[in-house]
């Protein structure tokens, strides 16, 4: 069989990609709860997708792209939680630690450039792969990487 069929087996899809998607959503949205909502929404759309994926790579790229759109949409429409109820705070185990290190930096990068920065510097994707995922030209990806770096540099310079 030359084609990879979209089996709609959500269990295997979740096991393969949930961590990656969750990390990405967390980087966009900044808290566990909204990240969970974004991942859930992505898998709902995954189940609703009618056509097959041509490869596992395509499936992964599609999920990253949809998650990015969902996260940006949540940011845009201010569906992100402005506060977290006190009783739920203890559930955010790694949030504090992460916030101190990477998230501080990522939050200074605009959402548009953030996804590209994360995929390249933290997930290890090449410029070519990112271009394919987001449907951009390689030059556009390089431009976003440069802008993201500049945004971060400006922030660090201000701190100094």
């Amino acid at each position, binding site marked *: 069989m030359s084609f990879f069929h979209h089996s709609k087996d959500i269990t295997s899809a979740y096991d393969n990609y949930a961590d990656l998607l969750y990390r990405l959503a967390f980087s966009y949205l900044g808290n566990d709860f909204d990240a969970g909502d974004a991942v859930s929404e992505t898998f709902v759309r995954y189940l609703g997708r009618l056509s097959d994926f041509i490869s596992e790579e395509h499936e992964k790229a599609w999920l990253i792209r949809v998650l990015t759109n969902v996260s940006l*949409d949540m940011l845009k*429409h201010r569906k992100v939680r402005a506060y977290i109820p006190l009783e739920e705070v203890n559930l955010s185990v790694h949030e504090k630690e992460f916030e101190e290190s*990477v998230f501080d930096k990522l939050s200074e990068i605009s959402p548009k450039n953030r996804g590209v920065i994360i995929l390249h510097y933290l997930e290890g994707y090449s410029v070519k792969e990112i271009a394919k995922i987001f449907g951009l030209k390689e030059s556009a990806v390089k431009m976003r990487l440069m802008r993201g770096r500049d945004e971060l540099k400006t922030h660090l310079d201000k701190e100094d």
Partner: protein
Amino acid sequence: MFSEKEKNAYKEIKAPVSLREKIVTSEKTETKVKPFFSRNIATLAACLIIAICIIPQMDIIKKGNESGVAEEKTVTVKKEREIVDASFAEPIREEKEISAKVSPSVPEEIKTENEPVMARSLPEPGEMPIEENPTVTEKISFPVNLNCGENSKISVSEGTLYLYLPEAGTKISGSEISATGDTWLVWEIETPDKTKIYEMKMLTEETEKKYELKYDSSWHLQQITE
């Protein structure tokens, strides 16, 4: 850009177990709740088409056979009485065989002759008349996020742009709209042609940016590129 410690901290983030349960369980529950007919809607539709198209025609065939044979029997008897000749036995037998396919609408004079009668065959189930080239229109929406300058004009070569302004509670649409700042748009195109490249232009006071919507054969998707 990021230290090894920061990279490790990032990689340590895992989706919570509760989320897995929520997504996987909800999917399974949804499947269980689905009634039999909703899952097999295509099968049901196919059965319905067969019931509507095939069964009434089968009934006609049956009726035709019965009446045709009955009439023929009468004719055959007459001929046997008029021409008592063994050589006529063969065509008559042949006529009997053919008669099974004769519909009752065949004129009387044809039946009385001893020539083989060509029966008008009913269309096979696969040859049922189907409306040729049914026109199916499909509207596809592409969400677009643009960082516009002051009073940017956004226009598209084809289709319609929709801009929702939550503050005003209104929706603007058209092939050319004005926007300012970070803007989310929906570009709707009716049945996009895979061979065609659609253009979107963003015109500010200083610059002009052009975006292309085209079919990416490697992903089998329509994609917008800068």
